[in-house]
């Protein structure tokens, strides 16, 4: 890859100043590429895996300790990060502005509600659901299976929403997806009486929802937990599982980006007409982006519903679609690791960060401002500042970086020697 910045003015400045930092940099550069490349990822992974063991110690580090989130909060942060990585396939890779991603979250959560709770008390169906006595009514399917079904169901929802809307371009697509993002929460809110049939239990939502687990047999043989909810290590188990789900999502989206389909998505984002002329079926390719983005959103939604043991219509506000979009923009559209970073940062601010910062601020300034109340103003300000100073996001995608930093067509197209 030719990186224009390598021989730009920055590179020269770096050569000029021989400091301790550049010595470190030189040592770092001398490590062979094969070893060097996976090191940062490995460090992050080890820290992430051991966080359940170290976070109590970290949190007791005096003033600084408050900035480390509780384990339960991290589960929520990771759920939303996973959704953001899914949304990135739609918005970042394919350039389809989707303002209704919350619909997929809702579809996933309610799939878990239907297939792993006592919602349908008319029936009693049990399939590998641990820790639930067989005389309990309702459908109780193993949550692992529910996650897959939720992904599939949400992907189909994505296709159904996509078929009529993906013919639209740009702003029109955004408006229609916005509509669907509003419709689906309304449907679940009013879904307690479909001709006498209680589908969604209306505003009360569906709860409790079963928790994941491995059952007695696997507990005996492999020592895996019977049921997360009943375990003393409940939060740790939920944490490691969502970490694994997030990593799978990241892995899939990196692999897809570098595949035939990923190239087609990016080609559509760059120039739809040219993409079609290269033999890329526009509708099918865009619909796949929608379906795959929805798939991960659905799994995250179902998992979250199981974690908090409920699915409620009040969870699915329009705000969430925008919040997820902010994560993608903050991190860098199209950049998987950027979106993960954006998701972690905004997720943390949302769940704990703003409250912590607010109380610190109030302590220091002697004021009594509820900073968390201004959260959307703050997120908005972050996005505006990002757009002004770093429009490519925290960790820009290789391509976007060029596009936004250099501007398109800022140099003469003609280079004809005379």
């Amino acid at each position, binding site marked *: 890859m030719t990186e224009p910045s390598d021989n730009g003015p920055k590179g020269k400045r770096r050569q000029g100043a021989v400091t301790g930092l550049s010595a470190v940099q030189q040592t770092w550069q001398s490590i062979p590429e094969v070893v060097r490349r996976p090191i940062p990822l490995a460090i992050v992974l080890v820290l992430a895996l051991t966080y359940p063991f170290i976070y109590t110690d970290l949190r007791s580090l005096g003033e600084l300790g408050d900035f480390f989130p509780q384990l339960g909060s991290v589960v929520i942060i990771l759920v939303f990060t996973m959704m953001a990585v899914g949304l990135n396939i739609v918005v970042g890779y394919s350039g389809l502005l989707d303002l209704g991603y919350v619909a997929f979250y809702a579809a996933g959560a309610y799939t878990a509600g239907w297939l792993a709770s006592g919602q349908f008390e008319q029936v009693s169906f049990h399939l590998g659901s641990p820790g639930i006595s067989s005389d309990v009514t309702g459908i109780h399917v193993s949550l692992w299976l529910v996650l897959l079904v939720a992904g599939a169901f949400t992907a189909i929802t994505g296709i159904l929403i996509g078929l009529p809307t993906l013919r639209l371009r740009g702003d029109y697509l955004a408006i229609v997806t916005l509509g669907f993002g509003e419709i689906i929460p309304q449907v679940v809110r009013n879904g307690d009486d479909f001709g006498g049939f209680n589908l969604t239990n209306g505003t009360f939502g569906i709860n409790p929802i079963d928790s994941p687990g491995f059952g007695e047999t696997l507990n005996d043989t492999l020592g895996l937990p019977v049921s997360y909810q009943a375990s003393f290590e409940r939060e740790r188990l939920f944490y490691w599982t969502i970490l694994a789900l997030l990593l799978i999502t990241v892995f899939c989206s990196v692999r897809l980006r570098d595949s035939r389909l990923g190239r087609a998505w990016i080609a559509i984002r760059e120039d739809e007409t*040219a993409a079609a002329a290269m033999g890329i079926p526009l509708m099918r390719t865009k619909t796949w982006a929608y379906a795959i983005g929805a798939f991960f959103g659905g799994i995250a939604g179902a998992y979250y519903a199981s974690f908090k043991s409920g699915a409620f219509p009040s969870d699915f506000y329009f705000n969430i679609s925008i919040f997820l979009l902010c994560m993608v923009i903050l991190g860098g559209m199209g950049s998987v690791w950027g979106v993960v970073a954006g998701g972690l940062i905004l997720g943390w601010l949302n769940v704990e960060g703003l409250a912590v910062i607010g109380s610190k601020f109030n302590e220091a300034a002697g004021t009594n401002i509820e900073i968390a109340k201004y959260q959307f103003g703050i997120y908005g300000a972050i996005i505006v500042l990002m757009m002004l100073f770093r429009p490519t996001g925290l960790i820009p995608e290789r391509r976007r970086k060029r596009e936004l930093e250099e501007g398109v067509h800022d140099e003469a197209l003609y280079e004809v020697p005379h």
Partner: protein
Amino acid sequence: MSAVAPEARVAEEPILVAAAVRKEFGGLVAVNDVDFTIPTGSIVSLIGPNGAGKTTFFNMLTGVYTPTSGKIVFDGKNVTDKPPHAITELGVGRTFQNIRLFEQMTALENVLVGMHARLKGGILGSIVGAPRVRREERRATERARELLRFSGLRGRDDIVARELPYGDQRRLEVARALATQPKLLLLDEPTAGMNPQETASFTDFVGRLRHEEGLTVLMIEHDMKVVMNISDRVTVLDYGEKIAEGSPAEVQGDERVIEAYLGRAANE
């Protein structure tokens, strides 16, 4: 791409037949019942003053526009109502009048996108890294590099399209179109903005495509030197109507063509 000698294909059916093709935009008739055939293995030029409907005609052949009436048959198949990607899949590759590369992608990636319809790698296979998909990707990359070299873009593989010099961008558009493995290649003003040397080498290149790759070429071209040099047949459009057709020499002497280009003589 197999090299088929042009002589071997002369006797075949024409590769493209357009019958009474018409396109209206509101009240404007952009293309008026044009009949048009492209003999297999030939180089045909489509010329005419600005606004004559040449690009509109091109866009109908490639499925960007659906004709208001008329019929287009490519390689024995009716493609009149087919979408662009399906026509490309059947074997029509094209370039654009105003270069439309995927600007943020490298030259290599641009060519790989062109191969889309010829590759099979599915979603699951790509995610798990199935050997079949990896092999296909490796072969595709090799072929793409070969195509880049063939198109005169040696050593440009990893340069982002928009950073290529203008002449190379034109060449890359052709390489990308060739990656779709076309039987018929449509070039929309390929030498626009090129200097005489670039134009001459491009003309050679198009000749090679026909002889070495057995391609049929249809091009819109304004440079009469290019048109007269390499075309087997020339079709002239004016105000959406076909006003002349024939060998370059015939067309050059045609009264109506001279009129269309130079205007009617004042004393008539």
